[in-house]
């Protein structure tokens, strides 16, 4: 069975190779081939999952070693895979949602002449992401980590003819670089500390390592997670990444890649458990991002950017849960999976709306679409209900667990975190209701596009609606399925461990509070955007200081510009000055003197055999004299 693991990765990798290197002859079948290979991966994953279910809890993990990758003295790295409960959860999510989004893209990208390439990149992404979650050591994980970064870069900038898309791709790449440095430093620290990269030995020997070192490794891993998962302070790229085609936003920048940071932290749980300081920082990052994303999501008029803010905020929830330690790991992953369903569904719905509205993204120019796009409306609506945590739907269960876990952290910390997660839930309800109302309800505010055509919204083709419907099913039922009888908890607990913490208030109270927060958020949104008496203005009003800041992503770019770009420029300039005067002076001076010496020595080579002979004679004399002298000394 374990021999199938490599096939999981090989299928999409083959697709990427064929589609990207095969050239034009695959133009006509490229999208089908790519989709088929993604589906192959899912089928293999499902088979492995079914096989895993038949085994006892203790020997569910499978290992496959392909070959020895690097073997230099003490430096050993293998191409080896590990498939355990945590990995298979990701495998199913990635390949399942991935396949659906491949199908969706067939319709969505139909008129794009570079569709084959698009599917090649999607396959490449799948292969890299599967490698990331299947690797059995940090070095190979890093390989997958960089691979998804590359695929993300290529796909954000897929419409590279748009300067904004090219810039956004570059921005995502650069910001991710900062995080990747964290991961590479963490791996180096691991190597110096443990002498290996493999999960088993590294995580197994945490007990013998100083807490300081573990904190350092943990913080570096967190930096990596911040980059990939768009957490404060490395969050700035995610909003711009929405320049990519919508299926990309759904797959990479909502459902899977951006959750890699959560995977990394949960996978490295043993390190964080032994480094409380690092864990505290994780929680703080999660809490701050949770609020940050939610606030940004409230102010955005661009439907995809509003959803991006929401993604950031929801991942904040997951990171926060992961930072709680064993209390929260399982729920972080559970929320990750349910979020994968409903957020992918929401993005696909947004893509469907854009498809019908001449690629308009400004929600102020939507309105009243529910009649024109019924399937999109219903699936989007179910995703909406799931994300705000409407009782009984997926998000309700998973988010509620995180809120409970936050309280269960105990002490003041528990109260603070619990309140923040509750407040976040209210804001989530607010901004998602706002999106819903502005898009599907109210008056038509449609505007003619650049060529003067009014949009004619229409339902999208079947290839697009069917994935949306399937995802809607996931949005509705996944949470309940996972929670009833603690299925998900029992499934993951052997890998991540679990601790029920010290809840200061009962679970029922928390649930009630969550529902109140939800109702509060929805009502405020309805008051502001839903009433006929107060139609949504087509041109955004000036808004308060906070609104304006939130529209600018809470000034993240301004902050980066002033602190990092300007600071960097000053630093560069001063370094260039030192380089020009001091370093170049020395270098050029040396070069000039060597050159001068060369010119002078060259004159010795005058072309006369007689002077050459003299030089040889003299040389021999010196040679003999020196030899004799050596003996004399």
């Amino acid at each position, binding site marked *: 069975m374990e021999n199938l693991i490599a096939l999981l990765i090989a299928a999409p990798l083959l697709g990427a190779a064929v589609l990207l290197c095969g050239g034009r002859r695959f133009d006509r079948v490229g999208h089908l081939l790519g989709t088929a290979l993604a589906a192959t991966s899912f089928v293999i994953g499902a088979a492995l999952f079914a096989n895993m279910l038949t085994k006892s809890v203790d020997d569910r993990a499978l290992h496959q070693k392909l070959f020895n990758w690097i073997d230099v003295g003490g430096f050993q790295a293998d191409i080896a895979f590990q498939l355990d409960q945590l990995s298979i959860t990701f495998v199913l999510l990635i390949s399942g949602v991935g396949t659906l989004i491949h199908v969706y893209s067939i319709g969505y990208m139909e008129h794009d002449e570079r569709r084959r390439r698009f599917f090649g990149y999607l396959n490449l992404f799948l292969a890299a992401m599967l490698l990331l979650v299947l690797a059995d050591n940090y070095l190979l994980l890093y390989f997958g980590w960089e691979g998804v970064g590359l695929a993300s870069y290529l796909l954000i900038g897929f419409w590279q003819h748009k300067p904004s898309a090219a810039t956004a791709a570059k921005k995502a790449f650069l910001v991710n670089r900062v995080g990747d440095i964290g991961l590479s430093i963490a791996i180096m620290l691991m190597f110096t500390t443990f002498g290996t990269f493999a999960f088993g030995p590294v995580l197994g020997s945490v007990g013998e390592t100083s807490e300081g070192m573990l904190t350092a490794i943990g913080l570096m891993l967190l930096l990596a997670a911040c980059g990939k998962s768009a957490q404060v302070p490395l969050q700035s790229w995610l909003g711009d990444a929405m320049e990519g085609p919508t299926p990309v936003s759904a797959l990479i920048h909502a459902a899977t890649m951006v959750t890699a940071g959560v995977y990394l932290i949960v996978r490295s749980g043993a390190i964080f458990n032994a480094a409380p300081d690092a864990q505290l920082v994780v929680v703080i990052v999660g809490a701050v991002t949770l609020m940050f994303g939610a606030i940004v999501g409230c102010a955005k008029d661009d439907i995809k950017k509003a959803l991006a803010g929401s993604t950031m905020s929801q991942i904040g929830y997951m990171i926060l849960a992961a930072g709680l330690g064993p209390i929260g790991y399982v729920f972080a992953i559970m929320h990750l999976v349910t979020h994968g369903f409903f957020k992918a569904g929401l993005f696909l719905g947004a893509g469907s709306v854009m498809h019908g509205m001449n690629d308009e993204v400004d929600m102020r120019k939507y309105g009243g679409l529910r009649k024109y796009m019924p399937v999109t409306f219903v699936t989007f609506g179910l995703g909406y209900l799931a994300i705000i945590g409407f009782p009984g739907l997926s998000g309700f269960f998973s988010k509620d667990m995180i809120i409970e876990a936050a309280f269960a952290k105990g002490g003041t910390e528990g109260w603070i975190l619990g309140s923040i997660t509750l407040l976040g839930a209210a804001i989530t309800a607010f901004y998602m209701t706002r999106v819903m109302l502005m898009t599907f309800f109210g008056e038509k505010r449609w505007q003619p596009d650049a060529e003067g055509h009014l949009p004619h919204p229409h339902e999208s083709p079947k290839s697009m609606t069917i994935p949306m419907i399937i995802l809607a099913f996931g949005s509705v039922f996944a949470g309940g399925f996972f929670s009833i009888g603690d299925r998900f908890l029992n499934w993951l607990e052997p890998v991540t461990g679990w601790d029920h913490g010290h809840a200061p208030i009962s679970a029922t109270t928390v649930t009630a509070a969550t529902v109140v927060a939800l109702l509060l958020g929805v009502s405020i949104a309805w008051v502001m955007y839903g009433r006929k008496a107060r139609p949504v203005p087509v041109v955004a009003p000036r808004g308060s200081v906070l609104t304006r800041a939130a529209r600018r992503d809470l000034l993240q770019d301004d902050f980066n510009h002033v602190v990092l770009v300007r600071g960097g420029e000053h630093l560069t300039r001063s370094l260039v000055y030192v380089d020009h005067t001091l370093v170049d002076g020395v270098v050029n001076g040396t070069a000039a003197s060597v050159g001068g010496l*060369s010119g002078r020595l060259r004159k010795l080579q005058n072309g006369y055999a007689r002077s050459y002979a003299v030089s*040889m004679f003299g040389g021999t004399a010196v040679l003999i004299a020196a030899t004799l002298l*050596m003996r004399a000394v």
Partner: protein
Amino acid sequence: MSATAVHSLWTTAAGPIDKIQAPDIEYAQLAPVLIVVGAAVVGLLVEAFMPRKARYHAQVFLTVLAIVASFAAVLGLAEAGYGTTKVRIAAMGAIAIDGPTLFLQGTILLASLVAVFTFAERKLDPETHGTKIDSFVAQAAAVPGSENEKQAVKAGFTTTEVYPLTLFAIAGLLVFPAANDLLTLFISLEVFSLPLYLLCALARRKRLMSQEAAVKYFLLGAFSSAFLLFGIALMYGYAGSVAYARIADVVDGSIRTIDPVLADTMGNDALLLIGSAMILMGLLFKVGAVPFHMWTPDVYQGAPTPVTGFMAAATKVAAFGALLRLLYVVLPGMSWDWRPVMWGITIATMLGGAIVAITQTDIKRLLAYSSIAHAGFILAGVIAVTPEGVSSVLFYLGAYSFVTIGAFAVVTLVRDAGGEATHLSKWAGLGRRSPLVAAVFAVFLLAFAGIPLTSGFSGKFAVFKAAAEGGAGALVVVGVISSAIAAFFYIRVIVLMFFSEPKADGPTVAVPSVMTKMAIGMGVVVTVVLGVAPQYFLNLASQAGVFVR
């Protein structure tokens, strides 16, 4: 006085004639040399008896065949364990058959094979008077610019004698690193030197320069041979023998019996020191070490470029082989005496070659100085006096010789109306016009500079590592500095080729025949393979790195 009595004043009656002891010759172990010598003799017969038209093909075929057969013999000997377990001293103590011998002979033969390919190239120049012409003069005896010469060109003469000459040179080169006594050393040196002097004089273009180079080479070579021979005489005086093993025994004191004939001189340290210094000088001249290097630029520039490539590669390999054997077999007992001196020479060679190369404007002279600098790097490995020193030098020599021949082969391709365009200014913008040729040359230059993933890096790393472990850390520092200086002029050529505007009347790149393509191709392949995956060859060199005594 009787007739008999008168006669007995200046003659004496002979005793009974002793039977001459027939020397014991191990033909099988000497086969690599014998094959080449035999082929050379056959080559002379070909010159004498074959019609002119047929000679070229016959000679090229014969030469290539001989080299391949000889290489096969070397492989066979290595396979039979003569490099490792069955090392021996053959031919009555004259020739050592051991790992270094076989490794170097193999290297020399491969380098020679590649060089012969460049010798045989006849497509670079257009046909004149219906004859394909190569790099060599129509008739060597014709005075440059004379009526005689014109007639020879018109008659379509070619100097096919170069092939037997080359074979003789190869034979000498094969014996040189294997020589196990000083006289064999001297004779093999002359055997390869004399044909090389001649070959240097045979350039088709710029004949005066070529002849000047040959005369200089000959004069200075003779001068250094005189030193070498004198050194051998002194050494004989010291040790009472020319055999390496015996000298070594006397040096380290394990033989104390004094030959009564040499009672006055034997064991006199002054003779040993002066003699060894002079022998060293003779070998250092051949490797082109400062201050015995001054012939190199002039000869490299004047000689026909294929010959230059051959000399730069094969001669250097053989000379370093002989030097290694001398220092490791004969003189290890006095390494305290020669090491400081060799340190000085190594430093001077590394720095001197690298510094003077900076201001060169002719590509062949540039490569000549580069070869001097490389001789310095190899010397750093030589004086490590450890087994790693030997194996690193062997590896370096193998790597370096292919880069060198390849580089000189590329030089033959870049041509203008006057033949090869060797002035650097003419190479400007070559990368725009002939990207492939320029890229190949860039690979060679990067290998010379020792950039990783080329054989140059692996080799340099090996010798510097050996030198550092042999206690010559300071030498390594100087070596790295020299490498940095040297990188400047290598990279400068790359910059010139790729980042300068091509000149309007710049040279053209000739399309060579499959011969030169093979030579360059082998150079590139070896350069890259030894750069990317050197371990197998490093292991081979380290297996081969033990001398027989």
